[in-house]
Structure formats: C-alpha cells, structure tokens
C-alpha cells in the first residue's frame, strides 16, 4: 500500500516515475504515433481514458479476483475500455482515428496500463488508484507532446498543422520516419538521465 501524500502520488508520474522517460514503458505508441502533435495528443488522451477507468475498475474489484487469474481479468477490463475508446474515436473523430491506424486497438498491450494495474491499482484504494492513473497519464501525455513537437517541427516545419518555420526551412524527412522517432527518444532519454544524475549529485 502506498503511503505517499496525494500530491506526491500525482506528481511522481510526471517526473520521478515518468512512464516514458524513467520507466521506459509504452515505447511502441511513443515511437509510432508521435510524427505529428495531433496524433500524439490523441494517443495520450485515449490512453488516459483507458488507464483511469481500468485503474478504477481493477482497484474496486481487486478483492474478488483470485491471484491466478488476475492478469487475464485485467486484460479483459483493459480491452473493453480500449474498444470503447476506439469506437468513440471512429464515431466522433474519424480523421484522427484513421491517422492513428492500428495503434488505438494496440493500447490493450501498452505496458503502462497493465503495469499500473499490477503494480498499483491491485494493491491500493480506488481513490489513490485514480490519482496514480492521472499522474501516469499526465506523464505519458507530457512525453508524447515533447517528442511529437520536436518531430513535427523538424520533420514538417509545422506545429499542430500550422506552418511555423519560414520558407528557408527544409524539413528533415527522417524525423517523421521511424528512425527519427528513435533518434529523438534516444536524445531525450540521454537528457533525462543527465538531469537525474545532476540532481542526485546535489
């Protein structure tokens, strides 16, 4: 059981236990849908929805589930919320849903979600799990936004589809290709580690 204060429970997801930069979870969507800010943001919000509701359900029914079938039960719960998110995007945000392709259904296997159920929601109260889910989602959205902003500006010269670089700017096509995702993530992880080392030394 976690004994942190509510504020610290939320804030840990933003930096100390940031799912992308610190835990290296959810790498597949992080790399795949951060070519543009809008798809990165949509992925972040869809994941937030799934994480919050899965955590609430899992933490509420944790005592009823035998340990042997807990993972299977979590997956069924997660898959249900992912399907709801997918249907919702298809119905109300069709172009975004098309742009994200298969990556919305793939939220089912996003390790951040299953990881939080196993590491947190299955051991803590519903209220605390909600705060944890909000913190982790915020951290995930933050990471996706940083990554997609860098990639969209360098790769296409735009931000949220608006041209922000002058005519002199030649887009770096590699940044919107998969290789650009790996390069950007690698540099960001290096920076995160450097900051961590520096703060630890002080």
């Amino acid at each position, binding site marked *: 059981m976690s004994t942190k204060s509510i504020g610290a429970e939320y804030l840990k997801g933003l930096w100390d236990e940031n799912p992308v930069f610190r835990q290296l979870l959810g790498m597949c969507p992080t790399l795949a849908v951060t070519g543009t800010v809008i798809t990165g943001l949509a992925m972040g919000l869809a994941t937030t929805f799934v994480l919050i509701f899965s955590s609430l359900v899992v933490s509420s029914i944790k005592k009823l589930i035998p340990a042997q*079938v807990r993972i299977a*039960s979590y997956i069924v*719960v997660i898959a249900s919320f992912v399907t709801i998110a997918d249907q919702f995007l298809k119905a109300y945000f*069709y172009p975004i849903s098309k742009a994200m392709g298969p990556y919305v259904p793939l939220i089912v296997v996003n390790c951040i979600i299953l990881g939080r159920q196993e590491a947190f929601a299955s051991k803590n109260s519903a209220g605390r799990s909600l705060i944890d889910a909000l913190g982790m989602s915020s951290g995930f959205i933050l990471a996706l936004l940083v990554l997609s902003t860098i990639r969209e500006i360098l790769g296409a010269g735009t931000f949220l589809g608006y041209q922000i670089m002058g005519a002199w700017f030649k*887009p770096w096509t590699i940044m919107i*290709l998969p290789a650009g995702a790996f390069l950007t993530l690698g540099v960001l992880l290096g920076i995160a580690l450097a900051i961590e080392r520096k703060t630890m030394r002080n």
Partner: protein
Amino acid sequence: MSLSSRMIIVLTTVGLISGGFLAGVAQLTKERISLNIQKEIEEAIVEVIPGTTQNKKLYQEEDFTIYSGQDESGSTTGYAVQATGIGFQDKITLMFGIDDSLKRITRITIIDQKETPGLGAKITDWNAFLQFWEDRDASGQLTLRKPPAGSLEDLLPSEINTITGATISSQKVLEIVNLSLEKLKKIISEGKIAVEGHDVN
C-alpha cells in the same frame, strides 16, 4: 468454494459484463461510424467528378465499386470508381472519376493508405502527385513518367508523374487505376450495368 470454480466464475463474470457493455457501445456508435464512412465516399465522388451533386451506386464487387454522378438536373456527370489494391506497405483505397464517354479520367483522390510518411504518403498530396492526374486519357493504359516532368502540360495525356523517392507507391496507384479501367470497360461492355449508348473502346 474450490479455487478452480472461483477462478472460472470470476473470469466468466468479468467477460460477460465486458461483453454486454461493449455490445451496448457498438450499438450506440454503429450508425455514426457508417455515416462517417458514407460521408467520406460521397465527398470523394464530388471531388473526382466535377459538378456532381448526387450519386448512385451502380455496381459492387470485392474491392471495386462503381458510382455514377448526377448534377442537379439529374443528367449524368460521369462515373466514379472506388478500388482497393496493394500498395508499397499496405492496401491503398482510391477513387477516380471518369467522364461519361469513358475516355478521360477527370481526377483521382486517395481514400485510405498507409505508405511511408513523407515519401510514399505523398500520393495524397495535391502538389506532389494528385494534380498530375487531371484530365488523363483513359482510352488505353496509363504510364509513369520518370524522372517526373515539371508541369502537367509537359506530360503526354496518358502519362502520370512519378513522385521522386516514391516510385513504387506511384507505380502501385497507377496499377490499381489501370486494372480498374480494364474492369470498368469489361463490365460495361458485358452489359452488367445499365449505361446508355456507350462506345467502349
């Protein structure tokens, strides 16, 4: 209660509740999703046959659909063919418009594709690719121009510009259109759909 029966009961219950819940959500969103798809196709038809306000589905088989377009007075403005074929990465679904004498491709639009972003995905870009599909001669097979010509006027009427760095994606789009043209002409010459007084050659 034994552990195994408890495991079975819990998993079954979780599955049943989820299933019921999802059936409800599917029911709620089904209509809107099919409306979205229908709207996308209607917009594509208007885009590829200029002056069209209404359309009719004339023929359908797997990965191949023919629509006819009408203007406000009800006279035929042309035909739109929606076809799906293999691209470089995944399937490409496109639609092209053809005039009612089946001699001229008016325009083309890409409905769905998963080509390489920044390279093959340029098949959806007007300046890089789609503009070179205006008013193409549809009496025979279309061919690719490589290296690409600078403007539409420099191309032969039966030529399409290649996208630099995405020859295969360009080629695949061309193949889908060429195949569909043949299919369209065959279907009309066999009289499978009612098209008045057309000389198909």
